[in-house]
């Protein structure tokens, strides 16, 4: 239909303003106004803001060094300046407009391959920053090299190497000190969920895929020499099947290679754990399923102790409580990620703490993180602590008297330091102030000192975190541990005699104890013994004391994190050595910055535009004729400003050519919290709808759209349109002219979470009020009210009851018509077959998994189609002009299958009803599209 062209352009508008899905969707909010600058080096244009100047110079040096290294390794040179966009923290990074999608917590950076931009947050840690830069630059080189090879050989349709190779290569080249096998990879081998290379498509995009790719490449390099990787890349043109390329270069079959790889992993890893035991054989497992992390202990009475923890088991991240010694179910204390109050948890980053009845935890709330002080007895939030200069906060810890709260935080410039807040004086005190990544602080008794993790030690430059003590009085800092390992998550025993922490000093994360005797003074060197208390096949984290002889901790095993309870005994202590395995140095290491001669210029960023997309198209329709056109989109390097141009012509004869010229020009500004766009258009051509039939309309006008996100979940939208419209129905009505002014306001709310075929929890709704008037001829005058409410009741983890109630009203001259019917609205009726200027819909659906996964096996391989979802539905609704005609409805069963994460195919079987009779015939309806 010609009308689709107009809808495509309107779709443009809303897509450009980025609701996550058309019509509803959460909001990606640009809270912060960044003062962008550009640092030009020999090979990079680095975009940054002045507050993070030091990190930029460090990052620039890392990038230039990596460039030279990769130039040699890839035998390739990038003949353009690579745009690097740096943010000081992950919260700032999440605001980027370089890509329209939401950025998950675990994303450490990305390479946008269309315009070759690299975006990375510094996030307070030199080693993570370094790893992220090196990782993303591998993508830059790899993509450029492969493109160059394929262009030289004129194999322009040749498929790009698979994602596992791309990401595996990035990890392989960027990790400089691989001392121990990765935790997830080890777990996969031990628990049997490691995927072979030929099956790695089943875990595309997952962390495990990254690690498997890296491990396989390491295996190839060990077996054939490091050059094998470059040879594989250089021969990518040989075959479209990448496994054949590997076979061609190595001379071995992929089956033999992956068998050998898996065997080598098993040999090594099984040897590593041959003396280990299973945690479940010794300790009590308190949770099942999902990620359950960061435990805290709450004594609600003398006899009842509860373990609080953060979990994403339901899809939302919540705080749960589990009573010890009580077989009752888990209780949800705080429901997160549904409201602005608890917008997002940092699941793997921030611990919690309890003092008395008060719980301190951190969530993202708007632009910053805030610390919530929650009353566990009353079950409500007491107050929030928010610090405008602090972007990201983690791991709050009460002092023994509860008057102070210690935590680590990232300031605007990206420096991760230790702070405490004094409740009595409402004072924020900064304890450390330097480039080092300080985190996980805990109080010493009498608040005389603090113990925390930091990379300031002698092995910190290589990314290792050790424990340090800080003296509040004289501000001295001294290492408590020192070595090429990560010592993290310190926890002091109730009697302050033992420091419990987790460490990977012996190859994997286990729990260790460091006794603190009277000789220990914070800020002074302290030599002591270290004892290991766990020796498990899984990795242990976040230990917390319940009492002097009991602890809880997080165990990673079987690709999930669970809370475990352990009773300590003397027998479980194993002496492993001293706390200083490397002699600590007095002065800390300093990260190197880019020196003067490699810096070309610094300047204020004023906008640098390049093409996003340019395409032309020609279509021929047997009925409507031919149409040709072009579309161009341009945006700046930060993605904050966009221009879109669409030109097409649908003339059927030469004489129609000028008259049938259509164009659309729009400009959008996305860099601030309020997103807006404006432009002009001319649409002319034949249209059709069931109400008016065929008609010709010419419309010339200008539009203005505005979108103001109130929170991550709700927003206001406004669309204003000024147009001259000329309609010809080819009948007695003649030609209708109108100067139209249109104004639509909408309020959108969406906190739903999605399953395979549609939303499974939460709710979303939209209310729209619009008025359209012809200010010259009074030929058009109508108002429109739309209300669409959808709620998803999670009955069980995989069982959802979904309801939609929607009403559409439009009254006046040339009022809008609404069309229902079809798989998306009223099932059992032909698509868009029922229409009127009044419309009502009521849909109910019980969604459940029908088949968990479908796999088709072919002689040469297999295809996984995911699962098939089922739905029992009852629909009711109608559309009418005047006088409600009575409800139409249908009921039945439906099946949905998600293909590739983007396309959902739907098949509904049922019967129609008018709620007095049920039709005798059964309908079978096949279509596509997500559930409502």
């Amino acid at each position, binding site marked *: 239909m010609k009308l689709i062209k107009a809808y495509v352009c309107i779709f443009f508008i809303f897509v450009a303003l980025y609701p996550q899905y058309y019509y509803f969707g959460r909001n990606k909010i640009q809270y912060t106004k960044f003062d962008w600058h550009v640092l030009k080096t020999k090979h990079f244009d680095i975009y940054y803001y002045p507050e993070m100047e030091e990190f930029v110079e460090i990052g620039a040096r890392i990038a230039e060094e990596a460039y*030279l290294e990769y*130039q*040699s390794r890839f*035998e390739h*040179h990038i003949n353009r300046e690579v745009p690097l966009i740096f943010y000081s923290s992950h919260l700032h990074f999440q605001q980027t407009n370089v890509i329209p999608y939401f950025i998950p917590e675990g994303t450490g950076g990305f390479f946008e391959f269309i315009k070759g931009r690299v975006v990375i947050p510094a996030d307070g840690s030199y080693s993570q920053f370094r790893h992220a830069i090196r990782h993303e630059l591998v993508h830059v080189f790899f993509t450029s090299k492969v493109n160059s090879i394929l262009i*030289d*050989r004129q194999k322009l349709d040749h498929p790009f190497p698979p994602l596992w190779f791309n990401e595996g290569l990035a990890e392989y080249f960027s990790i400089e000190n691989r001392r121990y096998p990765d935790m997830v990879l080890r777990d996969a081998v031990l628990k049997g969920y490691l995927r072979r290379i030929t099956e790695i498509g089943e875990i595309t995009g997952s962390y495990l895929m990254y690690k498997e790719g890296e491990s396989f490449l390491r295996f190839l390099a060990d077996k054939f*020499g490091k050059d094998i990787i470059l040879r594989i890349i250089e021969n990518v043109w040989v075959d479209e099947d990448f496994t054949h390329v590997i076979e061609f270069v190595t*001379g071995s079959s992929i089956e033999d290679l992956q068998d050998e790889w898996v065997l080598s992993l098993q040999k090594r890893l099984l040897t590593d754990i041959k003396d280990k035991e299973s945690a479940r054989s010794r300790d009590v497992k308190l949770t099942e399923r999902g990620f359950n992390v960061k435990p805290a202990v709450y004594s609600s009475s003398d006899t009842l102790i509860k373990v609080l923890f953060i979990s994403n088991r339901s899809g939302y991240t919540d705080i749960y409580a589990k009573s010890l010694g009580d077989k009752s179910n888990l209780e949800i204390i705080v429901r997160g990620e549904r409201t602005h109050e608890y917008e997002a948890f940092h699941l793997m980053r921030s611990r919690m703490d309890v003092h008395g009845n008060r719980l301190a935890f951190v969530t993202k709330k708007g632009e910053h993180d805030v610390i919530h002080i929650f009353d566990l007895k009353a079950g409500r939030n007491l107050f929030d602590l928010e610090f405008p200069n602090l972007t990201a906060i983690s791991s709050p810890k009460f002092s023994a008297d509860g008057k102070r709260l210690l935590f680590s935080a990232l300031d605007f410039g990206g420096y991760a330091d230790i702070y405490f807040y004094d409740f009595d004086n409402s004072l924020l005190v900064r304890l450390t102030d330097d480039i080092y990544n300080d985190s996980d602080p805990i109080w010493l008794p009498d608040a005389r000192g603090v113990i925390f993790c930091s990379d300031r030690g002698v092995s910190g430059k290589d990314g290792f975190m050790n424990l340090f003590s800080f003296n509040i009085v004289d501000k001295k800092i001294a290492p408590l541990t020192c070595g090429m390992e990560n010592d993290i998550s310190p926890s002091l025993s109730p009697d302050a005699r033992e420091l419990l922490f987790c460490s990977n000093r012996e190859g994997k994360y286990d729990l260790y104890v460091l006794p603190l005797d009277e000789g220990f003074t914070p800020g002074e060197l302290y030599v002591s013994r270290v004892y290991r208390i766990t020796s498990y096949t899984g990795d242990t984290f976040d230990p917390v004391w319940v009492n002097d002889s009991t602890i809880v901790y997080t165990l990673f095993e079987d690709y999930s994190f669970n809370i475990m309870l352990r009773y300590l005994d003397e027998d479980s202590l194993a002496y492993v050595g001293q706390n200083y395995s490397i002699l600590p140095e007095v002065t800390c290491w300093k990260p190197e910055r880019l020196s003067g001669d490699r810096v070309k210029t610094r300047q204020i960023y004023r906008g640098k535009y390049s093409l996003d997309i340019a395409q032309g198209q020609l279509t021929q329709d047997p009925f409507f004729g031919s149409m040709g056109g072009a579309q161009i989109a341009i945006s700046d390097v930060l993605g904050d400003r966009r221009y879109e141009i669409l030109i097409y012509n649908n003339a*059927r004869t030469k004489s129609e050519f000028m008259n049938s010229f259509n164009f659309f020009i729009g400009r959008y500004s996305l860099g601030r919290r309020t997103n807006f766009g404006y432009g002009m258009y001319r649409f002319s051509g034949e249209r059709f709808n069931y109400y008016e039939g065929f008609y010709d309309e010419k419309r010339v006008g200008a539009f203005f759209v505005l979108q103001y996100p109130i929170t991550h979940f709700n927003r206001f939208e406004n669309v204003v349109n000024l147009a001259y419209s000329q309609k010809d129905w080819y009948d007695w009505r003649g030609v209708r002219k109108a100067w139209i002014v249109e104004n639509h306001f909408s309020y959108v709310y969406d906190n739903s979470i999605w399953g395979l075929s549609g939303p499974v929890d939460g709710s979303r709704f939209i209310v729209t009020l619009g008025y359209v008037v012809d200010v010259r001829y009074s030929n058009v005058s109508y108002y429109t009210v739309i209300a669409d409410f959808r709620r998803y009741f999670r009955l069980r983890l995989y069982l959802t009851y979904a309801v939609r109630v929607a009403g559409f009203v439009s009254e006046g001259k040339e009022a809008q018509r609404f069309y229902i019917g079809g798989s998306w609205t009223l099932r059992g009726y032909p698509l868009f077959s029922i229409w009127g200027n009044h419309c009502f819909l009521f849909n109910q659906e019980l969604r459940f998994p029908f088949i968990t996964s479908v796999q088709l096996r072919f002689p040469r391989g297999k295809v996984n189609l995911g699962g098939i979802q089922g739905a029992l539905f009852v629909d009711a609704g109608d559309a009418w002009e005047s006088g409600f005609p009575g409800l139409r409805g249908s009921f039945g069963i439906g099946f949905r299958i998600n293909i590739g994460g983007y396309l959902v195919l739907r098949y509904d079987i049922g019967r129609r009803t008018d709620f007095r009779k049920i039709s005798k015939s059964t309908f079978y309806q096949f279509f596509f599209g997500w559930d409502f």
Partner: protein
Amino acid sequence: MRRVIFAAIVFLILGWRCAERHRVYFQYGEEVKPIGRVGDGNINFLWVRSLLAAPGKDFEVFDGSIVVSDLRNRLYLINEMGKIVKSIRLKGSVNGKVLINGEYAYFTTSGDRFRLIKLSLRNTGDKIEKKVYSVFEPVLVDSLLLVVSMDGKVYCMSKENLGVVWIRKLKNRVYFAPFSVDGMVYIIDFSGRLFSVEIPYGKLRKATDLPTMPETVLPVDDTLIVFGGRDGKLLLYNVTENRIRWMVKLHGRIVSKPLLKNGMLIVGTMADSIYMVDFKKGKVLDRIYIGEPVSTDMVGVGTVAIFGSLSRKLICFDIIKKQVVWKCKLKGRVISNPLLFGDFLVVGCEYKYVYLFELR
């Protein structure tokens, strides 16, 4: 009318696509444009032309024409004026060098078809093909052709009819294209072992274990070979004594053949540098940072060395003054080794281009 317009548009699109596929770009310098000085003379740009795919690594000369293979499946003969005299379509892409002996060209192809081909450059109908699973160029010693396959087989064939004389088998796969020094052919396998093959008897002997995986080989007279490795190691091997005379580690990969001049090896690396190494002692005399990664062999012209870079430049370096004389920007990364023949210099770069310069 509608049908006519539609057919015309379709025809135009198809025609444009065909033309694009076969489009050749040719630019001839109407006025000879000097690029820079080379010794006492100038180097002048003559022409640049495009092929159907990027040119291969090495050029040869036959009857005054430049023999160029592209990375797709063609072999070209291009004359001094830049005109393609012959364009021969093959069924695979040429591996490495084309060996020219008399009027015949010997080369292997891979990709769609693995073959050893003997082709007459005068009469392209005169062609013999033999199925050999090889990605290496052949070596000619007297009247015998040596070809090494991917799986470590060494074929000795008659250059007349490509008949197999003998076959030997190595334990490991072959890493580097075979090369000939004083009648012996040398092969390097994937574990870094250097083997020698005696011609014509085919006696296979292990020579030595190389401490680097070489990317480039420079035979010097009949007894010495210079190896340059991807790890930056440069070493001199004496074939008679069967020992490594010296080895130095340079910064950056060595992917191009060094130049031996005045008792010095001039070596370019991927770390944007040129090294001067004493040939006898193996001592690094100087390192000059030039800011461009060296990607091709060096060609000596008087007191200068000319080479290509991945940064799309043809560079002239003065060996005596130890400085860059000029840099000439080309249309793409320089991927073909410059070839000097007579007063001409030909070089190829990515995106299908071949350049000819004149030295006067």
